[in-house]
């Protein structure tokens, strides 16, 4: 293969493409920039969280509310979903039948939903303890940071559903492939953010 077909960042899709490769390069590049901007948003949420750690104002604090067990389960689920998304990428490249692609996307979707379920259960437990965001600056910061990640995962799940429908409608045409690459970047990005949440929020809150 010549250099030009491999010019775009991300998974090289070795098959005849309707759109010229520079379109793919541009589309992926733009999405990287979007992720960079999103990363700034999360960085600031972490910074706010850091400044508000001590602002518990008599409401339940980290030691009382954070449980390492559920957080670890969520971590394992989300990291596994990144693996299964990666497997869907390999299926996209090597499997012409689309069955494995759809299968791995479906597994990823289920893992994403499972993650959200566990996370919502955590929040419900906290609400049950009276740890609601209007109680203190600390809880406000927590409920801004962690649910923002959760909303991103929810958006990713909706995106997977949209992509599954698109695969049904259009097959794996150039646009679908490009969108799957972008969705992959998004999904892995959320993993990285979660690692930071796990370390800074849950590990620090329970062990620190």
């Amino acid at each position: 293969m010549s250099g030009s077909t491999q010019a775009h960042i991300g998974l090289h899709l070795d098959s005849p493409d309707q759109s010229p490769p520079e379109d793919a390069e541009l589309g992926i590049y733009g999405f990287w920039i979007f992720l960079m901007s999103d990363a700034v948003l999360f960085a600031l949420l972490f910074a706010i969280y850091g400044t508000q750690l001590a602002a518990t104002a008599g409401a339940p604090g980290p030691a009382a509310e954070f449980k390492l067990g559920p957080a670890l389960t969520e971590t394992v689920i989300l990291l596994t979903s990144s693996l299964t998304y990666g497997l869907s990428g390999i299926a996209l490249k090597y499997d012409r039948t689309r069955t494995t692609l759809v299968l791995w996307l479906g597994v990823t979707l289920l893992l994403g939903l499972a993650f959200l379920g566990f996370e919502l259960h955590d929040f419900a437990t906290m609400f049950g303890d009276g740890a609601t965001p209007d109680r203190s600056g600390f809880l406000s910061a927590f409920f801004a940071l962690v649910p923002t990640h959760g909303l991103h995962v929810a958006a990713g799940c909706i995106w997977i559903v949209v992509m599954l429908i698109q695969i049904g409608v259009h097959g794996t045409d150039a646009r679908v492939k490009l969108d799957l690459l972008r969705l992959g970047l998004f999904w892995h990005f959320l993993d990285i953010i979660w690692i930071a949440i796990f370390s800074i929020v849950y590990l620090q809150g329970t062990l620190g």
Partner: protein
Amino acid sequence: MTDAALRYALLGRLDAHALPFVRAWENPNLSEIIGAAAGAMVVIGAVVLVALLTWMRWWRPLFLDWLTSLDHKKIGIMYIVIAGVMLSRALIEAVLMRAQQSLAVNAPGIVAPEHFAQLFSTHGTIMIFFMAMPFLTGLINYVVPLQIGARDVAFPLLNSISLMLTAGGAGLVMISLAIGEFSTGGWSGYPPYTERAFQPGVGPDYWIWAITLSSLGTTLSGLNFAATIYKKRCPGMYLTRMPLFCWTALCTSILMIFAMPPLTLATALLALDRYLGFHFFTNDLGGNMMNYVNLFWLFGHPEVYILILPAFGVFSEVISAFSSKELYGYKSLIIATMAIAVLSFTVWLHHFFTMGQSANVNAFFGVATMTIAVPTGVKVYDWIWTMFRGELRFTPPMLFSVAFIMTFVLGGITGVMLAIPPIDFVVHNSVFLVAHFHNVLIPGLLYGMIAGYQYWFPKAFGFRLSEGWGKVSFGCWVVGFYLAFMPLYVLGLGGMARRTQSILDPDFQPWLTVAVIGAFILLAGLVTLFVQLVVSVRDREQNRVPVGDPWDGRGLEWSIPAPPPEYNFATIPTVHRLDAFYWFKADGRAYKPAATYTDIVVPKNSWVGPIVGGAGAVCAFGLVWHIGWMSLSGFALAWLAVIARSFVRDTHRTIPAAEVKAREESWLALAARTRPVPRQLEESSANLGLAEPYPAEVAA
């Protein structure tokens, strides 16, 4: 369900007192009547606009040719139209404020304190987010693809969505005149004053959601421009061969990508406080308003350079073109631009020296702030050296550029003064500060935008703007500026606080009188700009420049017809050095047919942009008034439009090679039979857009 609950579910907080007309009826004092008149202007303006569109049968062209267009040139023009409308409103507000202060020395004046606070809040919000940002985004949109030899921006649909989100935000600010009220918390909206405890009304909510729409649009614009400049340059257009305007556009885009998220977050967290009772910035339960101040100025200071850098780019282009010389110190200008962009993230704290940091922290940020004066000084010298021994022509854009250099240096010097924390402690929160930032933003932003508008107008519309009226307008903008703002330096040093509705010291009166005269002259500057536009449209047949190069230009944007075809370039050019088109002309390679023409693929129009922008504005309006069904449906509609669009595959159409060839050849034939115009006659109707070559200068 009780009536009250049903009413709340349907209309939220809306009631008759939301209308300024009702308030003026019940309480007919001058301040309320001025408010009602302003609301009436919005309503009457909207009615007149609808009537005009219907009468002229412009609805179809408005939507099919403009609002749904993905052409970067049309999107750029629409941005500038928004800027013009919003500039008019915010300038009238400025005149009203100056009038109030000049009349309010130990007297009530004409507007009540609450009303005055809304005036300075909307004035600042509009000037920054809905005048300056759309203006510079519009210019970048129009010019950058042409300068780098591209057919469009990287993501045309995203571009349309950005425009419409910005338009939605601007619309929301206009609606606040006729329905409800605006924030009284200033353009920076500091909590805890903007929290629910102190301002339970809709004012801060209008501010929050208008800003949010605008900042989302701006983030997406920054992404789009950065991808365009990095990935869509024509062959040979290395980064160090780009016109300087592209460099400033690139730095501005990078700043947008990194600096808009703090603003989005600040407004979102403030909204959480106001709507859901969170405690980010409240006085009680662990809230910390310093977090807001830091977030806001983490955005706010880079924002200053988002605003000023594109204007620096315009001045670089204008000074080079009207001095007939290559830009002096091109590489040093690039380095200076980049240095300013990076340093802009290291100085945000100077906006709140007085808010409790230690002296050492203040000293660090003070020194960092002064450091920015160094690259800026480099630029000033580069512009002066560009003019040195050039063949200068003082057209209106050039006049604005020269006035900028001198006036901006004054503003920069007062900036360095304010960067010294002890001085800042003395004049902080006084009109000295107001004088300073107008002294940098009016020359450093507005003069640049006006210069850019006048410079590229003939390219966009195919005829020159009246230079006579341009010079009248220039005179008003310069004289008006000095009269309006130099007195504020004196008043600030004399201890006059900013944002005051009533003045107690009679010694301030003469200075305030001079300032209000200056404000009226600035208004005359705006009016003459509109007169210039009307006169120029009327006389357009005498001023046409169809060949497309009225100023003996140097960049690729001048190498195509005026107005440019939809696809910009019939064949993508290959460039070999800086000032590509100048050297095409010098080497005799300009206005030559291509060996072959190929089909050109352009994006089809799309309704997604207007739908997303409209739905976003509806969602925001619902949020302001707590109308749940409205905000949910607006939100859902915007996303459904985007998802539905992702299923559409038929998004492009092809312009056949034969058509491209025919258009290009007829333009080349026109160029061949057009009489070239020497530079000295470029302000006359002899200028048909073909510049006479100056072979002697090539050797120099």
